[in-house]
């Protein structure tokens, strides 16, 4: 991933919910180049937060790994 791609991903992590800002900021510090993340970032804020906080399991099966990492983070 080049710098612009990293920054693009970083900006997609700027959300309307502070909860997500914080979790995603922490996650990016650990995994700044996780391209899989982009797919999750297209979800509406509340749906994404429900997934990250473990209240919902409504996400594509092939995203299981990244969701696990996000939840553990």
């Amino acid at each position, binding site marked *: 991933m080049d*710098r*612009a791609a990293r*920054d*693009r991903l*970083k*900006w997609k992590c*700027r*959300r*309307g*919910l*502070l*909860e997500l*800002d*914080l*979790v995603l*900021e922490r996650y990016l510090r650990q995994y700044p180049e996780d391209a899989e993340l982009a797919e999750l970032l297209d979800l*509406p*804020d*509340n749906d994404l937060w429900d997934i990250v*906080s*473990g*209240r919902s399991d409504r996400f594509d099966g092939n995203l299981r790994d990244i969701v696990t990492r996000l939840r553990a983070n």
Partner: protein
Amino acid sequence: MSELAVRRFDAVVVGAGGSGMRAALELARANLKVAVLTKVFPTRSHTVAAQGGIAAPLANSTEDNWHWHMYDTVKGSDYLGDQDAIEYMCRRANEVVIELEHMGMPFDRLENGKIYQRPFGGHTQDYGSAKMAMRACAVADRTGHAMLHTLYQQNVRANTQFFVEWMALDLIRDSQDGAVIGVAALEMETGEVSIFQGKATLFATGGAGRIYAASTNAFINTGDGLGMAARAGLPLQDMEFWQFHPTGVYGAGVLITEGVRGEGGYLLNKDGERFMERYAPNAKDLASRDVVSRAMTTEIKEGRGCGPEADHVLLKLDHLGPEVINHRLPGIREIAIKFANTDPIRESIPVVPTVHYQMGGVPANYLGQVVAPEGASQEAIVPGLYAAGECSCVSVHGANRLGTNSLLDLLVFGKSSGEQMAKDIRTLPRPHRNLPKDAGEPSRARLARLDAAGGGERVADVAIELRRTMQAHCGVFRFPEDLAAGVEKMKQVAARAGRVAIEDKSKMFNTARVEALELDNLVETALATIVSAEARKESRGAQARADFPDRDDKNWMRHTLWYKDGGRLAYKPVHLKPMTVASFEPKVRTY
């Protein structure tokens, strides 16, 4: 020097939150060509975080009317709100909420099919009686989310043009007559600056809660509209008034709803004492937001805070048991575990009063027109510029906002500014004005300075210092020595911000550049706040001074105006006269 690209529209709206999208819809439906610029995808605007609801006296569950709502709002504002604007908002509340329902907003419903309404702090029946009004309309705990999605879909249908990941940098004014003719904006993808020219320009850029270290606001809330207005020579109004929420998670800011204390949770100091019993013997932990926040701050200030830094208190709820915590307080456990590393079923949650809502902003009237003193007039209209939502100061919230009145403000003043803009656009000649020769120059100069700076301050360091200074010197409870020292410190922070440098100068999608540009806006907002707070020698609403504990209507029932130029202050009277009803005379505010 190469020319900047120019895009021309009838209307340019900066911000795609609730207020910006409501205004854009009005304009697009009037068949005008509308551009909406936004830093993030529209439905990721901060409005998405709103849970509690929207106030409207629909009287679906209890008797209610706009007069009662108006009284509550005037009283809540601690008599600093403009009563004409408050009357206007309360009278149009039912209309804008029902309109939103017709657009498809999936409000919670009563069995009879009408919109369900619930009580909310400060909203009463019969002019402040002990009976609560049921006035808040909600979509479960997702009201803001539903509102943004509804408005976005309507805008797409009405052909509003969205410019996503575009950041407005500066206003463009015609020096001949001061008229606003658009904004210069940065396309993040390419890093290029363009001019968006409009016959009418609206600021709907939201709040600036990120000037505090402890904030419930998302990272995007950097006060860009305020910075742009200040740099263009316009004043910022009543910036000393910021609402604090008592229970933000220590170190993170994430809000823990009042519902936790409603269910029986309470606050403890380091001695394990339930200190609210001393401050509010009756209401205790359920006293109003400002009372609880002040008590917490006093405990911390007097050395009874918790933790190694003695800088927070604890919210205890483990006694409620897992049943109540898991079922009646959904989401709270997840938040505590994720952000405080504590499981509330076993331990208490560390909390601090956390900044939540900005009452001040760009001065505007109830038609959204931006107003500023000029010649003999205290409120001369700035031609071409409008403001709505949290970035504006209309002023309906005065010194303190009532919960659920903000989403209402977005709808009413989003709509009224859209209506007024459409009207004004039609009176202007068809062709756009000629752009001044130096249009966009200030923005280009800001970028050029960043590009040229070989070394200097780091953006993140300056931003942290700014937030720490505001938190320590201009928080919930304000002490004269702290304020005076804080003003000096903030001036130093501002000077440092003028010397920031970024390592990577590349243009294409460079977030470091964007964050450096946002810092300029945080600086203007923070300076306006602390200078205005230091100067106001009274306590009113959200401004609580240790040395002037009382409200002083004789000397201070007036609005503050702060100018960037020399940090100058001016004042203007509060509109005490409503549009059609008798004034509500100031009384002591007790609940």
